[in-house]
């Protein structure tokens, strides 16, 4: 889309005096747009999505803790956990759609993210049905999946053998 925008600006460049300020503006913006374009590599995607997922998973664990200790109402906790599960699933999809040099490592990362998303979904269901034991179990699953994610992430960025 950005490339299309640059093309649009360049193709309009010689169509009369009215576009003069637009040309100047577009020239000034070009370096920024190019920087934006180059900043979207697959490893950046993986890094950004993993950071987001790690933070979201931690928030999910905190919400579950709060609900288990009676500090958060069920309606809030279940909708928050569902929303976090969706964010985590989206992160898994984005990582999966990236095209890295080593697909196996990408798949491991994506699997860890999906596991986190499933755990958050389980926690949401447990909270909704007010089932403390299941919520506790989902909490442990969240912690284990967080460990998986950390491992997959470090392997993803480890030097190729």
């Amino acid at each position, binding site marked *: 889309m950005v490339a299309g925008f640059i093309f649009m600006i360049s193709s309009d460049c010689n169509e009369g005096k009215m576009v003069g300020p637009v040309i100047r503006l577009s020239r000034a913006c070009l370096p920024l747009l190019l920087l*934006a374009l180059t900043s*979207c590599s697959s490893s950046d995607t993986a890094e950004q999505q993993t950071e987001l997922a790690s933070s979201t998973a931690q928030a999910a664990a905190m919400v579950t803790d709060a609900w288990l200790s009676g500090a958060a109402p069920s309606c809030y906790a279940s909708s928050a956990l569902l929303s976090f599960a969706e964010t985590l699933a989206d992160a898994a999809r984005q990582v999966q759609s990236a095209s890295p040099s080593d697909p196996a490592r990408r798949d491991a990362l994506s699997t860890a993210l999906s596991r986190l998303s499933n755990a958050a979904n389980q926690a949401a269901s447990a909270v909704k049905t007010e089932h403390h034991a299941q919520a506790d179990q989902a909490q442990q699953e969240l912690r284990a999946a967080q460990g998986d994610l950390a491992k997959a992430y470090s392997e993803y960025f480890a030097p190729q053998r």
Partner: protein
Amino acid sequence: MKKLLEISLGVVTSVGGFLEVGSMATAAQAGALFGFQLIWAVALGTICIIFLVEMAGRFAAVSRHTISDGIRERFGFNAFIWPLLAALLVNFLVLSAEIGGVAIAAELATGIGFQWWALPVAFFAWLLLWKGTFGLIEKGVSILGLVTLCFVVAAVMLHPDWKGVAAGAVPSLPQHDTAKYWFMAVSILGASISPYLFMFYSSGAIEDQWDKSYLGANRAIAGLGMTFGGTISVGVLIVAAVVLGANGVTEVDDYNQLPLMLIPIFGFWGFVLFVASLAVACFGATLEVALQQAYLVAQGFGWTWGEDLKPRDDPGFSLVYTLSLFLAAVPIALGLDPLKLTIFSMALTAASLPLTVVPFLILLNDDRYVGEHRNGVVSNTAVIFIIALGFVLAVVTIPLQIFGGT
């Protein structure tokens, strides 16, 4: 004695009215990701708004004009139209974000999606503006806003590293996420220096019939009220840093993460306090921004205006706040994420500041309006520097943020 009471009430009103969805969301995001490192942006924004609010009150008390009135009269309607349009657009986004803030609070409290609350919130705000008086809006809601002081209490209870807090008041370069750091700084500046704040203040001074005898009170209200208000923002940032950031919640991209700031400190009451703070602070801001839209248009076109008048006596004024409220509720009712809208509108506010602040500064240096009470070198320099900084940072970081730079 009467003046002292008015000053106290003014300070309380400023404190209670300071925090809104913009300052809360930007401080929470900044604290979670960068710890105390962006406290300087809150401090800089607060210094700037102290100067601007003091100027707005002084201008109104001495010249008996509101800011928009003055700009239109001094520069003519053709020049006034640009700051008017910029302010209307930015205020519209901010109003939408504030309605979104109240809607989020309602969702957190009831579990019913925020989209469903946007129109009822707009209707309730409209009803208050339609039936209420300026005193009720200004003081009633702002006094309720004192609930936001819970963030300061929470910050103290957390025993943060005060040396680190003090170090954060000095600008420093980021160690990671450079583009995000500067974008957050811009958003914090935009949230602190919202034009509606000082424009509303000048209209309020005219509604309250201020004259030169109020200059001292104005200085005290601007200085103390905004400083205490800024302290609440710093409180939010500290709480976010210690509770969220330190526990690994560094990306506050979902409003469901926000109540987690107070729950570990106050337990269930933390949740209640957070919801109440968000609802009251955003609802107060909704009323103020909607009124400000009406002030802007009515003063710009020379219509009759005044919140204390009956709607039939100022129909244009009443129509503007009515339309503003319901139109601003539409994006939220359609499901636009209030948190993302908030952060974006705050950055855009910073980018638009020169358009609204520069003509105002010229007025404050014009003897015909303020006579011997014109601006000094310090206030001129401070405001120009901070506005220019906000503008430059906004122009550089907004494209980077939109296109995903790191």
